[in-house]
């Protein structure tokens, strides 16, 4: 039995690893959306993070630069979104879509010379503990530092939003930009910051994919994870802790279908893959039908353009 138990531990460890990019991107997007900005560019920012992280790793041979660089490039590309939606007052949905389309194209262009280059080994922590403790070892140990960061992030985000002054300001801006503005809060500045933070987190999520999860560069390698992250924020009804739970469910489905393919079970893989999307729609319906519930959960000004007359 000990072998089986250990196998389950390894499985749980794999589920955790596959949920990391979702947690990172969704936590970033959650802050952005809490400030009232709907950025549909998650997929684009992630893929830009993925290629810049990988390219920097190849060029500088330094993983620290690669990770920080991926965050910076996510931030820079989200700045385009910020400039357009906040300064030029463009529509969030259209701008975000443009960002995703642009990001996928741009990453492929930059990545042209990086296809087929093998990745570098990313240091995993506590490898000896992973081997020596059955079941719990593979769950808690032998992961990259990014995984530990990702699993702490939702709690940090929750604390930040609920207990700090800046968190309160962000929520105020998201729920009622006009009254926040009347209180002397610079709505545009707050929203810019949240957009940039979201961009950096999406960049980080992308570099997790290209540096750790599948250490190489493949065109379009985020493969829709950005859209899942967006769905996840809604699924979690804008609550950071639920993002963590949701990401584990979504990640679990990914791992499960890989194993089912291997075992040759008869349930269509595609049905499992579609579950996260269908579940998100159901959650949306459940929270939206009650207008009080949606007001409690959704940033009221989400996706709305705020313009202060000077």
């Amino acid at each position, binding site marked *: 039995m000990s072998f089986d138990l250990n196998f389950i531990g390894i499985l749980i460890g794999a589920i955790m690893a596959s949920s990391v990019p979702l947690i990172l991107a969704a936590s970033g997007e959650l802050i952005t959306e809490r400030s009232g900005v709907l950025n549909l560019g998650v997929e684009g920012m992630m893929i830009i993070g993925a290629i810049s992280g990988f390219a920097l790793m190849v060029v500088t041979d330094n993983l620290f630069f690669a990770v920080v660089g991926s965050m910076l490039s996510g931030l820079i590309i989200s700045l385009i979104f910020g400039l357009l939606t906040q300064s030029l007052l463009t529509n969030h949905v259209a701008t975000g879509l443009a960002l995703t389309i642009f990001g996928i194209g741009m990453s*492929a262009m930059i990545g042209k010379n990086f296809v087929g280059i093998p990745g570098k080994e990313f240091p995993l922590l506590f490898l000896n503990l992973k081997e020596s403790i059955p079941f719990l070892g593979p769950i808690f140990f032998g992961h990259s530092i990014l995984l530990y960061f990702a699993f702490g992030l939702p709690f940090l985000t929750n604390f930040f939003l609920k207990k700090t002054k800046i968190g309160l300001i962000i929520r105020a801006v998201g729920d009622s930009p006009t009254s926040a503005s009347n209180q002397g809060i610079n709505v545009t500045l707050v929203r810019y910051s949240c957009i940039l933070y979201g961009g950096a987190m999406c960049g980080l999520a992308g570099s997790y994919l290209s540096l750790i999860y599948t250490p190489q560069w493949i065109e379009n390698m985020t493969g829709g994870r950005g859209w899942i992250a967006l769905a996840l924020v809604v699924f979690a009804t804008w609550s950071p802790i639920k993002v963590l739970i949701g990401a584990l469910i979504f990640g679990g489905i990914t791992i499960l279908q890989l194993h089912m393919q291997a075992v040759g079970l008869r349930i269509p893989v595609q049905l499992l893959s*579609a579950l996260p999307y269908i579940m998100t729609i159901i959650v949306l*319906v459940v929270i939206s039908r009650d207008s009080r519930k949606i007001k409690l959960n959704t940033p009221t000004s989400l996706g709305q353009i705020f313009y202060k*007359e000077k």
Partner: protein
Amino acid sequence: MIKIEKRNDVSRSIYFLTPILAIFLTLIGGGIIFYILGFSPIEALKFFFITPISDLYGLSELLVKATPLCLIAIGLSFCFKSNNWNIGAEGQLIFGGIVGGGVALLFYNHDGYYVLPIIILSGAVGGMLFAMIPAILKTYFNTNEILVSLMLVYVAKLLLDYLVVGPWSNPEGFNFPETRQFSESARMPILFDGLRIHAGIFITLITVFLSWLILYKTYLGFQIKVSGLSLKTAKYAGFKGKTMIIIVFMISGACAGLAGVGEITGPIGQLHRNISPDYGFTAIIVAFLGRLNPVGIIFASLVVALTYLGAETAQIFLQVPKYTGQVFQGMILFFLLGSDYLLFFKIKFLGLRKNEL
């Protein structure tokens, strides 16, 4: 969405000229990107935008790609004009393709003039029904249609994947993820020998004309436009908001479904995993670039179709990835949205959907 504060005299000519400015800026931006990547900008842009359409075959390919883009964008213009954010046209296209393709497989080895019209009609109905999901959820459960229509894209993609791998896969196909080739009676007639341009273009043109009629000559079109400008006015005027939302989604979905069925019975001739190179998403750019205007959308679809073709040519001559086209598509939309600010400088922008969500 936009409340005009001081300047309600936005010049119509500038309104339709800014898309041209956006295209111009995109060319400059693209040139700069090519330069940074070590190409001669002029030459690269030539490969991208002139080489592909310098012969008859290229022009035909341009129309082959513009046909679905224009069709979907026309449908989307109904939604966008009335402030309904259907961004799941890709899913509606795929679902239309699935239903149309299913009927085509049902009529496998049937001969008869009736086969193709039935397939086309079923594709349109398929897309329409699929678009009704976000519409009904929006009207009866107050659900955000952006997210629902987007989620459904992936559901449709996975359903298609399941069908072509599993029950619908070609029995003699060596387990390739594709269906049988449709029989001849289920294919769109080719217009000229040796070119791929097909009768689907007439469907697109007829749809454009009908849309113009609906939008500008009927009461429904009036309702759609008023609801887009001001939801409050629409309510005050007593328009049936819910019915209208469902109708615009139905129109939009039917158009996307038609585009899907046009692709599978036209250039593709079977169902497989990738029946659309994201036409449904790119058509959103087309709709904006064409200013949600039927004639504008025709021109916009040609421009955006050229970015698809240009990427294919550049892939061959410059060895750049085929995704390069998306860099241009993204830039066009960035510049277009950005230049609107200059246009509406003194217009007050309110929320997309006040008191909603």
